[in-house]
């Protein structure tokens, strides 16, 4: 049964809100500037509640089940963090408060800046980017400006591996630079010969930098990472790390210490801030010393105050203030970032501490490798050996081939849709692009062995069905609120707005 659209619940004169009468004398309204009609629905409070509760029940979510959506890190979102975000001093704090009036919030941001720097080995961090894609944009703008300031504006090529997430090339274009794609070798790693070629001859002087995801979008650690970084930097390029996969790296390796110049964090992935049905995210950026003055602003600066603060709890030991870095690429959004996400990430790091975060990464990688072993033999596992044919472990996620030679009519999408019938969210489909029929699986550390076993069991059953009763997969899902959709119709006959919302409706 479909849930009606909110406008279908409307009746003239109904209201879902109880507002006060004016307690001041009314002023005349400027009639010539007023609108005639406001086509919003008129619905009672309980009807609104039921409508949105019923809609919520049509969703799959982390709170209802395992959500192994690769590269999205769908881990548990702690409830205490939601409570914290609703405290009045955080939820009802104005972004243009005078610094004296928001020292608590600024302290929190300052601590988070320094913790993120510590986790990834960077000198300085800005929390302002609103999402990972904006963090990437900040990184590439910083690299661009760095070269301009050094008198090398001709450096406009950013190297991007062909396994990269689509945001990477789009970011390069947005920043006004050019992308040059690098192929992967047979082991799914950066092809060093191709990299040498790209960094040679006339090209060398035009290299602005390179974007890399670590572990790669195949979920694999790049064994030659040191050589890749060295090669790009030797011709004057800077190294950008896409930090989407940081859940595989905490207390395992610090990207800044490996030699990366810049990276973004996805607070909504690694640091558990909720994905919200598509956002908000938060995409802090970290940089080494040569880029710190270029960070997007404002950042929070801490100035120690004189006096013996330790002796008296009432005397603050520091004052926090906004700071625009001297060569900043500028503001990326109004105010200072998605603070509601900063405070949740702060509470999350507080719950774990340094050793706890190491355990997060260990268990995320354990879960992925365990699930991969459970699927071995049932599904093809591309790139599961190094270039020399040695055994290879995955990071926090892994790719399986969602197709079978002896079941030619079955595609990765069919396997995904059939998983819905088994009660699971599907993995990421058709990404990375370098694996045909890819299913990218990321279980995260908050899933138990029991649930991983159930997912593996479902995947095994589906592999069997693919050969015996492929129609079951091709018709799936059959248990979801709707069946497969006519996406072509949606794009051809654009219907983006309810007719009742149009003027004069």
């Amino acid at each position, binding site marked *: 049964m479909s849930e009606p*659209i909110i406008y279908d619940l409307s009746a003239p004169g109904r209201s879902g809100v109880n507002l*006060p009468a004016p307690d001041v*004398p009314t002023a005349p309204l400027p009639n010539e500037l007023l609108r005639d009609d406001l086509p919003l629905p008129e619905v009672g409070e309980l009807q609104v509640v039921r409508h949105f509760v019923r809609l919520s029940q049509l969703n799959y979510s982390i709170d209802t089940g395992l959500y192994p959506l690769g590269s999205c890190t769908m881990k548990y979102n702690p409830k205490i963090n939601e409570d914290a975000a609703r405290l009045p001093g955080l939820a009802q704090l104005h972004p243009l408060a005078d610094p004296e009036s928001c020292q*608590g919030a600024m302290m929190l941001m300052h601590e988070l800046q320094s913790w993120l720097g510590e986790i990834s080995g960077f000198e300085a961090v800005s929390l302002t980017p609103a999402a990972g894609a904006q963090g990437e944009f900040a990184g590439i703008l910083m690299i661009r400006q760095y070269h301009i300031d050094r008198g090398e504006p001709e450096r406009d090529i950013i190297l991007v591996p062909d396994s990269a997430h689509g945001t990477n090339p789009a970011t390069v274009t947005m920043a006004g630079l050019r992308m040059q794609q690098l192929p992967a070798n047979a082991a799914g790693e950066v092809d060093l010969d191709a990299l040498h070629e790209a960094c040679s001859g006339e090209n060398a002087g035009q290299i602005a930098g390179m974007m890399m995801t670590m572990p790669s979008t195949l979920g694999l650690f790049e064994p030659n990472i040191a050589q890749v970084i060295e090669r790009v930097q030797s011709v004057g390029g800077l190294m950008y790390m896409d930090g989407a996969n940081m859940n595989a790296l905490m207390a395992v390796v610090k990207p800044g210490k490996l030699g990366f110049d810049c990276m973004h964090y996805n607070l909504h992935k690694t640091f558990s801030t909720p994905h919200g049905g598509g956002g908000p995210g938060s995409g802090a950026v970290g940089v080494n010393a040569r880029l710190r003055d270029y960070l997007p602003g404002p950042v929070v600066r801490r100035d120690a105050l004189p006096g013996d603060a330790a002796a008296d709890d009432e005397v603050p030991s520091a004052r926090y203030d906004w700071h625009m870095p001297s060569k900043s690429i500028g503001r990326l959004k*109004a105010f200072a970032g998605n603070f509601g996400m900063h405070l949740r990430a702060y509470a999350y790091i507080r*719950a*774990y501490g340094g050793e706890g975060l190491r355990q997060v990464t260990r268990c995320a990688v354990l879960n992925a490798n365990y699930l991969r072993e459970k699927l071995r033999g049932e599904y093809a596992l591309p790139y599961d050996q190094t270039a020399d044919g040695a055994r290879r472990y995955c990071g926090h996620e892994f790719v399986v081939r969602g197709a079978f030679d002896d079941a030619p009519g079955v595609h990765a999408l069919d396997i995904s849709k059939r998983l819905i019938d088994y009660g699971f969210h599907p993995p990421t489909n058709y990404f990375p692009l370098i694996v045909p029929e890819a299913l990218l699986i990321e279980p995260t550390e908050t899933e138990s062995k029991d649930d991983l076993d159930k997912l593996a069991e479902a995947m095994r059953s589906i592999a069997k069905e693919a050969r015996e009763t492929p129609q079951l997969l091709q018709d799936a899902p059959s248990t979801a609120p709707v*069946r497969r959709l006519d996406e072509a119709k949606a794009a051809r006959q654009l219907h983006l707005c309810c007719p009742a919302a149009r003027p004069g409706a």
Partner: protein
Amino acid sequence: MSYIPHTAAETQDMLAKIGVASFDELFDAVPAGQRFPTLDLPPAMSEMEIAAEMLAISEANDHAGDFAMFRGAGAYHHFIPSVVNHMLLRGEFYTAYTPYQPEISQGTLQATYEYQSMMCALTGMDAANASHYDGATSLAEAVTVALEVSRNRRKKIILSHAIHPQYREVLRTYHQGKDIRIIGDRGRGELVDLMEMLDSNTAMVAVQYPNFFGQVEDLRRLADTVHASGGLLVVVANPLALSLFTPPGEFGADIVVGEGQPLGIPLTFGGPYLGYFAIKQRLVRKIAGRIIGETVDVEGKRAYVMTLRPREQDIKRERATSNICTNQGLMALAAAVYLSLMGKNGLRQVGELNYHKAHYAAAQIDRLDGYSVDMTKPFFNEFVVACPRPIAEINAALLDAGVIGGYDLAQHYYHLPNHMLLCVTECNTRAEIDRLVDILEGLR
């Protein structure tokens, strides 16, 4: 360990299944010299300790729960019906992600479609996307669309100085790598001055409605003039003001963008907010970001899905004009619930409360010796007050009396020393307004 369910026995079983003796073996591809650094972070805390610490941080701020709030300037303290928060706390909504699998995401998809519809209703436009990061980035994305529409032949972007200063900064950040000129906002130009800058090289003109100083201007002539020159008119509108005032779609805006925060989203120190983006039908395929359309499933049942996907970065890669993927989905849900509750009459009532209270406050302040407010131009819930002293002094005195005063305009407009932008909403009681006026009177 906090949110990790593994027992020691399970961990051992799992390592054995993989065929390794310890965790460390799983990381053998990481360069040995850099492997397993110590993280110098504060020690782990229990949930009780975290709750206490977050409360202490919260209490170290002066917030609208304890203070009478008269500051706006792009972020507003409004009443949020309780239902909004309860719906946002449905785990099925806030712990889901982008609806890549529409069969099990109809809740998010339909709610977003309803949000898009209600934003069309407010703005008078034909289509709205599922959101951008905030009002400022929506404006920056509008520039991208305008450049696209002219096939990058037109290189001039004209901005009113009465657009939020931070929005203009963000727009410049976004487009620093492009060969375009951004002009118009360095002086104090009126609308007629913007019209004089128009030429055949102008891709768009952007104005704010009500403008940053709170004034509501008639934009019909501007719209006609911009169109005559072949450019686009982009209007940055406060959606709550559109409860009362002519929607920009009606006077010819091509793109309407703005900050959706007044629609049921708390202040939260500046974010997460909601960048709304609405557009005319003929430009809809130029819109960036996610957009939800209605369709049917294989059985003919009505359903919703992300559409126009080929524009997006994950398919178009370096040929995409924007890299946005994660947006502000949960904030769009907040706005949808808020607008559903308020409805046609409730939203108008909120708009009128803002209007009347702001006009009452403005009239009372204008009467004070040493203070003046321009009462000749229409305004919504914000207005400029010329004060007899530096705003920092006034605000310090107000804060001591439990009042958060206006925004100091001299921070961005050097010709306006001793001028504050005051905001009065439905949340301000008459008693609060009278107290504000009394304190100001004592500060001549």
